[in-house]
């Protein structure tokens, strides 16, 4: 009898475990990029068990996905060039729009993104621009150009930071030289390298994560920033301003991708649909101060929030004059080497 009970308990545990692993949706996102209770609310609303894991960078989650062939994850949040790579590798699910009714909430432009026109393998989650974030009380003359970051005026020299993530670091040099942010021509890249190496002499530091804190503390006066992160500095210091240089910038898009290898497609589609709900998606805009491509969510934003953080009011039309970073394939190696050359230059 005892044995029978034990065996059935073990069997039940086994069944329970396997049923759970088959049904638990695994989502990977950056820390703090959606509501803390988003996953719990999703489970409560749909009955799908779900678990959130975190990645620090695009490259980190890409390394894991490429090594495992996409196994182990159902839904991932990655920036658009990486979504493109997942698609090129055949790891991204071809989306069935009928299963994501809230797709109708997206702006028309959000269905026409250059990396994935028609959203066949990715759904935009947040978008924005990259520009200059500075302290009006510490900078005598307001910046207008990328060159104001790369070869700053005397009062700003030694008080600038730049993003170190390959694509954005290079983009600053590319734009300053009048190139596309996806340029791969060798001579152009050599020119970009020289510009960025020269810029090191007036740079305080490369910084991807704490630049807004440096701005608030006064360690830096002018930093290379994503608009949403500049908002964190604006929130703490009213002298902080975000601007887009006259040479233009990139339109960055963070996307949601369902993995083709997912065994929880139903739950995965439901999750994407849940995120695109105007209220859920609006939470991100309101709380993490990133623009979301969701028309009703943005329409519902408090005008005071937009007044406090002007870049939240940028329209899709205004952003669409800028080019997206695209997957550059084999040229990514040249980019990586270029960045090493810049970082190692004395």
């Amino acid at each position: 009898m005892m044995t029978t009970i034990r065996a059935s308990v073990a069997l039940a545990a086994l069944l329970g475990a396997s049923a759970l692993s088959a049904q638990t949706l695994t989502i990977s996102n950056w820390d703090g990029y959606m509501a803390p209770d988003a996953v719990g609310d999703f489970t409560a609303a749909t009955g799908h068990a779900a678990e959130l894991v975190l990645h620090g960078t695009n490259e980190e989650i890409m390394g894991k996905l490429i090594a495992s062939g996409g196994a182990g994850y159902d839904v991932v949040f990655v920036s658009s060039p990486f979504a493109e790579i997942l698609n090129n590798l055949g790891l991204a699910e071809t989306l069935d729009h009928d299963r994501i009714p809230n797709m109708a909430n997206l702006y028309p432009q959000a269905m026409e993104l250059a990396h994935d026109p028609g959203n066949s393998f990715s759904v935009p989650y947040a978008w924005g621009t990259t520009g200059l974030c500075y302290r009006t009380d510490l900078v005598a003359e307001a910046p207008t150009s990328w060159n104001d970051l790369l070869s700053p005026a005397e009062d700003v020299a030694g008080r600038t930071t730049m993003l170190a993530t390959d694509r954005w670091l290079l983009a600053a040099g590319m734009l300053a030289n009048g190139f596309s942010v996806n340029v791969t021509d060798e001579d152009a890249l050599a020119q970009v390298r020289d510009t960025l190496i020269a810029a090191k002499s007036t740079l305080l530091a490369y910084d991807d994560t704490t630049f807004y804190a440096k701005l608030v503390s006064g360690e830096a006066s002018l930093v290379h920033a994503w608009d949403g992160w500049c908002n964190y500095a604006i929130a703490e210091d009213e002298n902080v301003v975000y601007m887009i240089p006259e040479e233009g910038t990139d339109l960055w898009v963070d996307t949601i991708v369902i993995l083709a290898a997912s065994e929880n497609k139903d739950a995965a589609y439901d999750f994407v649909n849940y995120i695109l709900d105007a209220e859920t998606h609006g939470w991100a805009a309101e709380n993490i101060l990133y623009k979301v491509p969701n028309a009703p969510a943005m329409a519902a934003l408090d005008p005071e929030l937009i007044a406090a953080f002007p870049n939240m009011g940028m329209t899709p039309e205004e952003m669409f004059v800028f080019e997206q970073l695209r997957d550059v394939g084999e040229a990514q190696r040249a980019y990586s080497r270029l960045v090493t050359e810049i970082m190692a230059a004395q």
Partner: protein
Amino acid sequence: MNQRASTALMAPALAWLTALMVVPCLLILALAFFRRGLYGGIEYTFTLENLALVFDPLYAGIFLNSARVAGTAAIIACVIGYAAAYAIAAMPRRHQPMLLFFAVLPFWSNYLIRTYAWIVLLNREGLIVQGARWIGIEGELPPLLYTQGTVIVGLVYSYLPFVILACYAPLSRLNPEIAEASFDLGASSWTTFRRVTLPMTLPGIAVGAVFVFVLSIGNFVTPALLGGGQFQMIGNTIYAQFLTANDWPFGAALSMVLIAIMMGLLFLQTLAVERGSGGRVRDA
């Protein structure tokens, strides 16, 4: 203890190291001989390209610069650490354990936190600058943070306790009668130190220096935080190959060369220690 007993006692440690350290390391190093796929990942075709690329002037230059930074840190740490160890060894015996305890105290806190503490101290609005303003020093101080010098200072700080311990061991074992004999034979204190004490404690210095050098050359946290990302050491390059460029084969090739350098130095260190303890001290 017979040989069978010692084998049995050693087996768990050996198994642990082999399964969890040696094998995974070899697996990573083996990647150096394969190609990187277009988007990262590994293509299993044999190649020596990755190892050849290590000797490309760009990467060889990073190795050399890392060696220069690590070497400078090792020399500074040895000068400061030896002096401290000498002073501790000269103290009354009963005070020595307490002083050594203070020397290794920083090890009890997290490395990252200790490094961040330097940022709090040295940044433009940090404690030192504020302190300077408070005592009335006006104007802009030279940048204290995000320079190569800061990286070296950070490395010295982090690894100094190793040198103190390594130098203290031979200094404390030194028989005071040897120095007395030297004085009796007419040598000054400086000559005694230079011709007797220093040579006899050289193995300790060598051990400390190699520790600092080996730990520094592979370090990537300190250059990233205190160098503001502007000074690439080989550890940062390897980190970038694995975690941003997704080029594991090249990262493995760089690691292989780095490990070879480290093992070479540790081998020399062992030789120095053996010579020191086996040779000179016994002769003396």
